[in-house]
């Protein structure tokens, strides 16, 4: 089921409510959000807390009504439909499993609500519950209470409950935030697998960029209710539209410098580090991905080595630079090159594709070279 969000806006009354004589202040949680989610894809809504991603999810689900704008499922305008008429499955951050019911009773719960011609016999319900339990690998746990399950198992019950009535759209609110690091890796692959097997259009919300990048077909990066960028994870990573997106994606995070364009060259710390072509002279903010540094004893960018962090597969060279916005500059080089890291001053050459220029004021991307 294709989902279309059209100029979706949601405002809330500000905290503290209205004061006497003053017009009620409002907070815009989602601002003019237009986006089409193709059928059968997995979409990650990504952003820091308070950016409106959960509100967007609630608007799609129907638990909240938009202030303006429309929501379409396929050709149907569902904006005015209550959640139960939309055919959505929702997985809550805390799973919201009914603690007094067994796993089976939890999964069957949505089916028991069906009335009229959709009404199922007990045998049909159990059959469906068993099938979905098999899909999320819960067989054998059906008679347990949620409290007797691990976090990952509870998560799977929540997904099973959301899927059992075959929703047109599956929505997941921070599905992995309550799991420990190992389980998180496992579960996100689980979610991807389940989504692929069922082919249900899935939207999930997360503040963890790694989570979003790893399993999403598309990611939507949001900030303060405004969509910053939409695209395939790799495209957004390689081609961020502004400083916020560049900073938000990637671990370790991008290195940010205060630089300057002079005579078609990017100047960092008084040295010309990269030719950038036809850009007028101006101050710029420079973002360099950690993997954009190449160890080069004749390289133009001179930093003072602080320490080398070994991570096994590769090595983090942590150094300082006077124009860096953060305390340290982090460069990632392959483990084989670690032996060549000099003591004291370390010099780098830069990969042009990993260097981004941003307007010093607005943070908007300034394209250079081929891009």
């Amino acid at each position, binding site marked *: 089921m294709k989902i279309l969000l059209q100029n979706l806006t949601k405002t809330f009354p500000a905290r503290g409510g209205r004061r006497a004589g003053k017009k009620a202040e409002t907070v815009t949680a989602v601002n003019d959000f237009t986006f089409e989610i193709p059928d059968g894809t997995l979409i990650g809504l990504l952003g820091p807390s308070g950016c409106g991603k959960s509100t967007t999810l609630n608007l799609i*689900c*129907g*638990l909240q009504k938009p202030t303006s704008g429309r929501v379409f499922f396929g050709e149907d305008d569902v904006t005015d439909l*209550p*959640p*139960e*008429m939309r055919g*959505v*499955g*929702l997985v*809550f951050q*805390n799973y*919201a499993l*009914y*603690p*007094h*019911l067994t796993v089976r009773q939890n999964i069957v*719960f*949505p089916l*028991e*609500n*069906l009335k009229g011609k959709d009404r199922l016999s007990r045998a049909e319900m159990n059959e469906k519950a068993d099938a979905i339990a098999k899909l999320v690998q819960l067989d054998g746990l059906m008679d347990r209470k949620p409290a007797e399950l691990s976090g990952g198992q509870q998560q799977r019950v929540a997904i099973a*409950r959301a899927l059992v*009535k075959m929703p047109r759209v599956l929505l997941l609110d921070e599905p992995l935030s309550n799991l420990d690091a190992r389980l998180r890796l496992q579960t996100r692959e689980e979610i991807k697998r389940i989504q692929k097997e069922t082919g249900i259009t899935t939207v999930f919300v997360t503040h963890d960029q790694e989570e979003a990048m790893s399993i999403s077909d598309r990611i939507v990066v949001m900030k303060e209710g405004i969509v910053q960028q939409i695209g395939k994870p790799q495209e957004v990573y390689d081609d961020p539209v502004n400083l916020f997106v560049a900073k938000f994606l990637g671990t370790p995070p991008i290195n940010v410098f205060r630089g300057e364009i002079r005579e078609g060259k990017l100047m960092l710390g008084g040295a010309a580090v990269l030719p950038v072509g036809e850009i007028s002279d101006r101050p710029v903010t420079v973002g360099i991905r950690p993997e954009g540094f190449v160890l080069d004893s004749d390289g133009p960018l001179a930093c003072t080595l602080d320490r080398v962090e070994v991570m096994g597969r590769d090595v983090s060279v942590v150094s300082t630079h006077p124009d860096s916005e953060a305390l340290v500059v982090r460069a990632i080089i392959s483990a084989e090159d670690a032996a060549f890291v000099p003591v004291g001053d370390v010099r780098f050459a830069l990969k042009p594709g990993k260097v981004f220029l941003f307007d010093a004021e607005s943070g908007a991307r300034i394209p250079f070279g081929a891009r």
Partner: protein
Amino acid sequence: METNSRKAWLYLLPAILFLGVFMVYPLIDVLIYSFEEGYNSASQTFVGVGGYNFAYVLRDPYFLQALKNTFILVVITVPVSTGLALLISVGLSSIKKLRDLYQTVYFLPYVTNTLAVGLVFMILFKQTPYSDGLVNLVLGWFNAGPVDFIDGPYWAKMFVLCFYTVWVVLPFKILILTSALASVNRDYYSAAQVDGTSKWRIFRRITLPMISPMLFYLIITGFIGAFKAYSDAVALFGTNLNAAEMNTIVGYIYDMLYGDSGGYPSYASAAAIILFAIVLTITCINLLVSRKKVHH
């Protein structure tokens, strides 16, 4: 470990001492009195030992009347007050406007003195040579009555007593239940709503199980409270409850203790032990049921 447990006992000592002196010792004493025939508290003498006190009390028409009254009171007021409180608290938690006002209004009887409320009820229900009372006035509009609720037929008096008891115990129950309802995670309701669950089914399958521990707490304490009813009857019908046929078990015990010619502590003790046995049995049954029905 050894010093730790000694320390723990030391900390518990004040409470144990007080409980022992003022609760456990009197309880044992009462049990002993109940088997001592003709015990006199002034001379500390008794004439014999045996089950006569119980036999007397169980044959005493006043006690049987009190037993009947108490059971009727319990059977009517506990379900009615708990049900009403549930209804009102669900109502309260589903409105936004005027909620605080209603909450305060419903809580008023709790902070009002029992006897003062009793007086108000007298005005509402009592017939005097000058007026039939407000309730009879209303009954008159429907061409019913007048009924003398205070000195009239048994059912009318019992109705007033039950009405009064429900009214007095309601606020506390509403307070407990509204906070229990408020503590249910909203996500359960959102989840149920997304799945298209009807309001009634949400209430029955989610809300009720979620607040069941509080509900059972109220039922158990409600039973115990109703079995111990006394002051409510006094507030409405005065101190001569036997004459009004409105005595309760506790009232009977009280009358036996302070009755004419120094009272009959042995009979009072026997009645108290019977009451204790009844309350214990009912509470045990309650706990057994709750183990099956209550979700913790």
